[in-house]
């Protein structure tokens, strides 16, 4: 190597050597001119970056690889055109083209032609290899497409890495108005902080009334996200001042389907809960913060002179970090402020629940919860691909063995070893190329299927499509795959004394050639990989089972729900409306019972309300317990399938003018009256005006905040009394209908009943309780299903791999087996011989795989529920399944071995 004249720096020696290899991508002429300078350049880069440790080294290498991938082909093409030009004009004289370049080109063409001929000659072999590769690459590209859309594509904000969400730790994550004002005024780590809260409103005027989700946002919200409206104008600071005319920005979606994409929507008046509001802007298509469901953004309009109390937490905060601020620094600063508040307002904050602020990059709040699932899936498809590679390598190896003679002849005729390796690599390169193309095609379909079955709660699904980075990924994966499965057989095939195979007869191949040894190593690797995959999938399945076995405390089967929102001004007596409605719905055929509730289990909640208990006088609100409130009509517990443990449920007699009553759940009873009967105790909303309410019933706990969450203490009030006993009468209620059969069978009739009472009442989010429960674990369900599918694929591939190696071994040993049988060996012992060989490989693979599985299980830990990462039963089942498949894969060739006729075998048939 004349380019490596200068002594390389000792620390970067390996890196430099790799860089020399990378330079070989460039044509010789270019290398000769700039090669050593580029090496120097690379060394300088490394020196400058090594201060950053391995991150720096990776950055340098990533840059260098991408750079070479982008420029080397161009230089090659350039060298090629120059060479062709030179050839055309020329007649021998002083061309500067380099022999190595054209020689390489010619041999490449030859190799490609040769490889294509080989593929055509063995269509079955080619089909198996291509199918395996297409499956492996297709699965990888599909999952990568999803991951790319959800996690890698840039968020629709300017410099999203500087945007953070600010939250408080438990008991509440939201922030109160005075806290927001303090942060905004004092926090130095942010250039800007804005608050927002989400709500819903009825959108009327024009067509059918509609329920829309609304974000109320403070001044600074859009500037922090740096999103200008697509048309119209943004909110100004003036828009956030109370008393100014009401204005709104609307989503691209709402603009399209409600206003037909008419640009004249700007300046038009819409009615939000009856309030006339001017549309001033339409936001860009991709903008979906704080949630894709939000269709309208209105100014928050806090009144700085009359802020709500410090313990009324309902705002969410975003901020843009100042130029040199970090997430950790910002968090430290906010926590310092928190501690000061705790000192300054001892009657507001509990010392036993210290406030602590968390600052989270906005990307984490958007897809943080989905990330572990996606990473697990990406890992799983990676394993599938590895197994596919091993299988293909095995196939090529076995075939290489049958081609040994041909190779030997070529070697004898003067082909260099390098040339033979290159030829083999060209073939695997072509396989990879075709397999990659097929895989991309599969992925194109696969992505569609995944999108169709992906849970709707997955963030940013509309960002998922095949783009340049997906194509680059597919190309990279195919290339890596080709190298991976091609290298081993290529090196093997070119090795060895070229004269040997020529001397060998056809009768008795060597009993255990090197190729077979390599093949066995590959099978062991494959089994090990399959164990890891199966174990991971097994743990996820067990977690899912654990969750599905949890007693919900209510019965989601055959329950239809829908949200009904009464326009505020038209309904002074909402109680009567819902009473009438439930009476009519109950009378419908197919309906068992019906009721309404302020909140549905697992679908949002009403926050927490501070209360007083049993006439005890509390000095400050910080001492007050705060259960979740729920307003329900009579029949709710029955409709939801919740069990009254003691006392009674609500009846029609619990009217507004009757004595005030409440039902509490077991969690609340345990917290307030441990070891006592809650019936007869009294509670009261914190505040002067509310009356005392008597507890008349105890209801069994239900998982109202999700399967995994703790059951919150909950108090239920009769809807008819809620206006007196629980602050107000909510106007947006969920209708809960228990049916005898398919809940959606009555949906049309129920909808008609609502509209018969009032045509202008919007109905929204119609879903069955079963759907709500399923949605709450949809992420997990989806990824578990996919993981299982991939594990099954891995198992299948591993089975095929074992079968291939054993069957090949048997075919190679036909002579030996025949000899054994001719000498009197029993069929059983021949079978045992073959099976034992397969089982040895499987056991070795199992042993290695179990070690790997335990490592991978630790990585999965955050996703597991109710299953320890080292779950032995799962491991046992996985081992048995694999052993079973291995047995099956060995049994087929073993049977063939038993059927060997000694005379035939010895004759060499």
């Amino acid at each position, binding site marked *: 190597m004349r380019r490596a*004249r*200068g002594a390389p720096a000792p620390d970067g020696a390996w890196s430099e050597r790799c860089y020399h290899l990378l330079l070989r991508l*460039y044509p010789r002429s*270019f290398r000769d*001119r*700039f090669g*050593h*300078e*580029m090496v*120097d*350049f*690379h060394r*300088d*880069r490394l020196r400058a970056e090594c201060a950053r440790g391995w991150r720096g080294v990776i950055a340098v290498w990533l*840059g*260098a690889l*991408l*750079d*070479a991938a*982008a*420029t*080397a082909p*161009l*230089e090659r093409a350039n060298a090629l055109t120059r060479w062709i*030009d*030179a050839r055309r*004009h020329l007649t021998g004289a002083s061309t500067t083209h380099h022999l190595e370049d054209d020689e390489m080109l010619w041999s490449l063409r030859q190799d490609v032609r040769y490889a294509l001929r080989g593929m055509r000659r063995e269509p079955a072999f080619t089909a198996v290899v291509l199918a395996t590769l297409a499956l492996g690459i297709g699965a990888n590209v599909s999952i990568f497409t999803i991951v790319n859309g959800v996690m890698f594509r840039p968020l629709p904000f300017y410099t999203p890495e500087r945007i953070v969400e600010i939250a408080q730790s438990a008991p509440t994550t939201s922030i109160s108005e005075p806290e927001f004002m303090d942060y905004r005024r004092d926090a130095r780590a942010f250039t800007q902080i804005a608050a927002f809260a989400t709500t819903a409103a009825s959108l009327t005027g024009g067509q059918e009334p509609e329920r829309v989700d609304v974000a109320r946002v403070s001044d600074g919200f859009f500037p922090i996200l740096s999103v200008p409206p697509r048309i119209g104008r943004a909110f100004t600071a003036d828009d956030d001042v109370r008393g100014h005319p009401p204005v709104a920005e609307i989503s691209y979606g709402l603009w399209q389907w409600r206003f037909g994409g008419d640009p004249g929507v700007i300046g038009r008046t819409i009615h939000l809960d009856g309030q006339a509001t001017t549309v001033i802007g339409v936001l860009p298509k991709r903008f979906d913060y704080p949630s894709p469901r939000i269709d309208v953004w209105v100014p928050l309009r806090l009144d700085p002179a009359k802020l709500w109390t410090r313990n009324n937490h309902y705002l969410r905060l975003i901020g843009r970090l100042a130029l040199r601020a970090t997430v950790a620094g910002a968090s430290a600063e906010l926590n310092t402020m928190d501690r000061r508040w705790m000192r300054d307002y001892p009657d507001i904050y509990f010392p036993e629940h210290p406030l602590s602020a968390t600052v989270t990059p906005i990307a984490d709040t958007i897809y943080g919860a989905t990330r572990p699932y996606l990473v697990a899936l990406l890992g799983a498809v990676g394993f599938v691909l590895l197994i596919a590679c091993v299988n293909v390598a095995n196939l090529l190896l076995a075939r290489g063995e049958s081609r040994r003679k041909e190779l030997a002849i070529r070697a004898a005729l003067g082909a260099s070893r390098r040339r033979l390796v290159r030829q083999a690599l060209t073939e695997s390169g072509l396989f990879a190329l075709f397999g990659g193309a097929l895989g991309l095609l599969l992925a194109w379909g696969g992505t569609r299927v995944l999108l169709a079955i992906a849970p709707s709660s997955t963030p940013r699904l509309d960002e998922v499509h095949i783009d340049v980075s997906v194509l680059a990924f597919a190309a990279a994966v195919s290339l890596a795959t080709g190298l991976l499965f091609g290298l081993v057989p290529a090196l093997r095939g070119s090795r060895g004394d070229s004269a040997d195979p020529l001397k060998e007869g056809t009768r008795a191949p060597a009993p255990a050639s090197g190729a077979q040894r390599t093949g066995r190593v590959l099978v062991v690797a494959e089994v090990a990989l399959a164990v890891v995959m199966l174990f991971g999938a097994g743990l996820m399945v067990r977690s899912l089972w654990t969750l599905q076995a949890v007693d919900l405390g209510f019965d989601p089967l055959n329950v239809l729900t829908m949200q009904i929102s009464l326009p505020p001004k038209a309904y002074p007596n909402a109680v009567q409306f819902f009473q009438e409605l439930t009476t009519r719905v109950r009378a419908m055929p197919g309906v068992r019972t019906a009721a309404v509730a302020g909140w549905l289990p697992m679908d949002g909640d009403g926050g927490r309300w501070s209360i007083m208990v049993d006439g005890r006088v509390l000095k400050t609100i910080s001492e007050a317990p705060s259960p979740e409130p729920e307003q329900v009509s009579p029949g709710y517990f029955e409709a939801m399938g919740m069990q009254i443990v003691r006392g009674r449920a609500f009846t029609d007699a619990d009217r507004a003018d009757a004595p005030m009553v409440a039902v509490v759940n077991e969690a609340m009873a345990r917290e307030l009256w441990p070891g006592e009967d809650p019936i007869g105790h009294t509670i009261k909303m914190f505040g002067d005006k509310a009356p005392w309410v008597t507890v008349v019933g105890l209801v069994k706990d239900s998982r109202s905040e999700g399967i995994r969450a703790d059951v919150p203490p909950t108090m239920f009030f009769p809807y008819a009394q809620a206006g007196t006993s629980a602050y107000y009468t909510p106007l947006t209620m969920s209708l809960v209908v228990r049916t005898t059969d398919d809940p959606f069978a009555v949906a049309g009739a129920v909808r008609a009943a609502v509209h018969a009472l009032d045509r202008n009442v919007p109905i929204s989010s119609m879903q069955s309780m079963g759907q709500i429960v399923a949605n709450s674990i949809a992420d997990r369900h989806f990824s578990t299903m996919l993981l299982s599918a991939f594990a099954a694929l891995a198992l299948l591939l591993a089975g095929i791999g074992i079968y291939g190696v054993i069957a090949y071994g048997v075919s190679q040993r036909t002579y030996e087996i025949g000899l054994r049988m001719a000498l009197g060996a029993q069929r059983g012992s021949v079978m045992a011989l073959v099976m034992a060989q397969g089982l040895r490989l499987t056991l070795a693979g199992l042993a290695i795989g179990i070690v790997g599985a335990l490592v991978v299980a630790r990585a999965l830990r955050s996703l597991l529920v109710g299953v320890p990462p080292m779950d032995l039963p799962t491991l046992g089942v996985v081992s048995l399944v694999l052993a079973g498949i291995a047995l099956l894969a060995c049994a087929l060739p073993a049977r063939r071995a038993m059927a060997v006729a000694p005379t035939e075998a010895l004759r060499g048939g």
Partner: protein
Amino acid sequence: MLHDRSHRAPTAPLPLKPIELLILTMLAAGDRHGYGIRQDIIDHTDGAIRPEAGNLYRSIRYLIDDRLVEDSGRRPATELDDERRRYYRLTPFGRRVLAAEMRRLRALVRLAEARRVITPESA
């Protein structure tokens, strides 16, 4: 064969690619080796442009082939630097091309100012 553009007008190779323009501009300040050009570019673009070796030397090849840049033949003292490091310099033709390109860009800037895309800077 190499195309020799040096007999042609300095506007012939225009417009230059951004990376070529940057390399020429950096060389206008004096001879540089490849890594030095990169450092200069990073410094003057606030790190927005960080050329890698292949991209840089590929452009240098074009610039040399077009006779805008040449090997300066200068070598620093051996103890200071590796003796094989090559320094590049602007040829007189390259300087004329750069000037022509800059004039072209200045005309564009004037246009943008006239159309109030940017506010005119007082000279």
